[in-house]
């Protein structure tokens, strides 16, 4: 989830919580306050009545023969009652429901016991607090609407404010997303007044500069190494060629020179391959072509056909499914498929078989190269793509760079290489090209 939505969501949630608490607790607080206020009034009234009885006598309320007296105000919101009782108690406040003319009303009542002329009386003074309940439910309704409006308004304000506030972060994000390679990084600073974002932007830029620097050093190193290594080889190669051209050597010496040339050729091939791998890894090779996979495979097969008779190998090509790679580096892809199919020949058995097939799926395109060769032991499967690992090529001309090259080229094109192999039965190399992008 985006930071922007997260912050807004948290803000909204805390507000809802506060509002909920408000809605839950205010009614009881209001109720408590109202009751306290009523109690004070009741106490006051009690004092007045007690004083009246003291000065004017109980007769004001109660005749000799009567045992109870009750009086309501016209609107029934207050009442006074006096009755004779057998025992005394302490002054208490109670809340109770009274049925008055078939209407249930909530009353707050002060009970006061007293003795008058040796007779015990209970005085009850009541006041309706029904209005508190009614008020509360109205208040709750109004508050609910107001708060819904409040939350909506603040969330909207939050969203637009956050959007502005987090805009620099989004810019940094899109800048990074657009940077497929450190070489392509946009160093222009992002305009912001938030120091955190400024710091982040600067730090990323600094890091990118360091990475670019490292890349440049590496590039220079590759260029220098290639010059330093290839120049002496050049001298040796031309010198050996000149020696052969002279034609003055005896046959034995000639043979030795030919062998030296072969060795030199090997050295040359290794260095060139290593350099190419480094160049690809450093993004120094172009990626501007467009190529049909089936066509490339046909070309590679045409190129390698001459080798089939050596081991009487039969090749089956199922290339009906095709996919156009763009952008790509055609000659690198040629090298990749060449190395894979060449391996399938090189490590195959006499009268072996090779199946090259293309399969188009909904989300991916696969090239499968299956052989009936020596296979690769499970414990070696992980390391076949490492440089200079070689397992079963005794007597073969291989320098252990064919598969690392394949892997590097596949990575360069965002492809995946999978290997399945059964020792002694053969291997299947699968190039997986994602097509859903």
């Amino acid at each position, binding site marked *: 989830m985006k930071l922007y939505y997260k912050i807004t969501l948290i803000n909204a949630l805390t507000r809802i919580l506060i509002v909920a608490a408000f809605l839950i607790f205010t009614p009881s607080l209001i109720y408590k306050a109202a009751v306290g206020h009523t109690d004070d009034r009741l106490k006051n009234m009690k004092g007045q009545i007690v004083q009246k009885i003291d000065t004017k006598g109980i007769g004001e309320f109660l005749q000799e023969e009567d045992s109870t007296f009750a009086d309501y105000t016209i609107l029934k919101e207050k009442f006074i009652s006096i009755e004779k009782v057998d025992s005394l108690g302490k002054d208490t406040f109670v809340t109770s429901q009274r049925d008055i003319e078939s209407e249930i009303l909530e009353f707050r009542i002060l009970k006061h016991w007293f003795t008058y002329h040796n007779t015990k009386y209970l005085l009850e003074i009541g006041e309706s607090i029904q209005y508190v309940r009614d008020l509360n439910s109205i208040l709750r309704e109004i508050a609910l609407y107001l708060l819904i409006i409040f939350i909506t308004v603040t969330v909207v304000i939050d969203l637009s404010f956050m959007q502005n506030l987090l805009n620099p972060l989004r810019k940094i994000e899109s800048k990074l997303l657009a940077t497929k390679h450190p070489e392509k990084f946009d160093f222009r600073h992002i305009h912001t007044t938030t120091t955190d974002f400024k710091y982040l932007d600067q730090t990323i830029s600094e890091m990118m500069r360091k990475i670019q620097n490292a890349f440049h050093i590496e590039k220079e190193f590759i260029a220098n190494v290639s*010059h330093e290594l290839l120049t002496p080889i*050049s001298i040796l190669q031309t010198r050996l060629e000149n020696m052969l*051209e002279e034609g003055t050597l005896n046959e034995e010496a000639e043979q030795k020179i030919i062998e030296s040339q*072969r060795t030199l*050729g090997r050295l040359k091939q290794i260095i*060139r391959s290593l350099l190419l791998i480094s*160049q690809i890894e450093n993004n120094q090779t172009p990626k501007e072509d467009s190529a049909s996979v089936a066509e490339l495979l046909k070309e590679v097969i*045409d190129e390698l056909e001459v080798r089939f008779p050596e081991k009487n190998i039969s090749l089956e090509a199922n290339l009906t499914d095709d996919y156009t790679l763009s952008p790509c580096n055609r000659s690198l892809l040629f090298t990749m498929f060449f190395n894979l199919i060449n391996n399938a020949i090189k490590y195959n058995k006499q009268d072996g078989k090779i199946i090259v097939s293309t399969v188009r799926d909904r989300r991916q395109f696969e090239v499968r190269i299956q052989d009936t060769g020596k296979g690769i032991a499970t414990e070696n499967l992980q390391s076949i793509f490492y440089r200079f690992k070689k397992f079963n090529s005794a007597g073969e001309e291989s320098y252990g760079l064919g598969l690392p090259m394949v892997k590097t080229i596949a990575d360069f094109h965002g492809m995946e290489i999978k290997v399945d192999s059964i020792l002694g039965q053969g291997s299947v190399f699968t190039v997986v090209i994602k097509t859903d992008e």
Partner: protein
Amino acid sequence: MNVLIVEDEKSLTKEVQAFLKKEGYVCDVAYTGKEASEKIYVNPYDFLLLDLGLPDYEGLDLVKEAKEANQEASIIILTARGSTDDKIKGLDLGADDYLAKPFSLLELSSRMQAIIRRKHGLKKSITELHGFQVDLTNRSVAFKTNVISLTKKEFDILQYLLINKNRVITRMQLTEHIWDNALEVDYDSNYVDVHIKNLRKKLGQYKEVDWIETVRGIGYRLNLL
């Protein structure tokens, strides 16, 4: 044919010079960019063999200068830098060919011959080869009225042997020639033997091909008087 070799590595210059002299070229050398730059303005050359990795000079600048001062000269860039960028830039600036170090001397002279053929027009595009007609421009081979279909590699080999006729070409030299653009592929020199075998078979249907000679342990020679 006057050739200026611009190369800071003296031993390499010596070998290239020795080889080209034997091939009949008149050679001059420059070990620094400055020296080369001066010589280009003074002397007319037919060929400039330019090393891009000179310590005192930006090699590509020399290509520009040479194009100004010595317009007749054909330029072949020799470099160990091996970056495709350089190659494209060099050719864009007007270089005629590009050869990555380490290169074979035979390959160098073949490229020079190809440039000469291209520049000075083809007096005869079709070469007579023991009854076969080899068209180097259209890359085809015929025997009388029959066109013989050769693969790209087979034709490359035949052409290379023909250009360097009466000379032993090693397997290594042939391999490097036909794989020039993809030297990094996992090739081995056994391919050459197979290609030669197929080439002999295809041509042999019409006439005996004893003029492609196998030189035991070394390579092949195309004999043509």
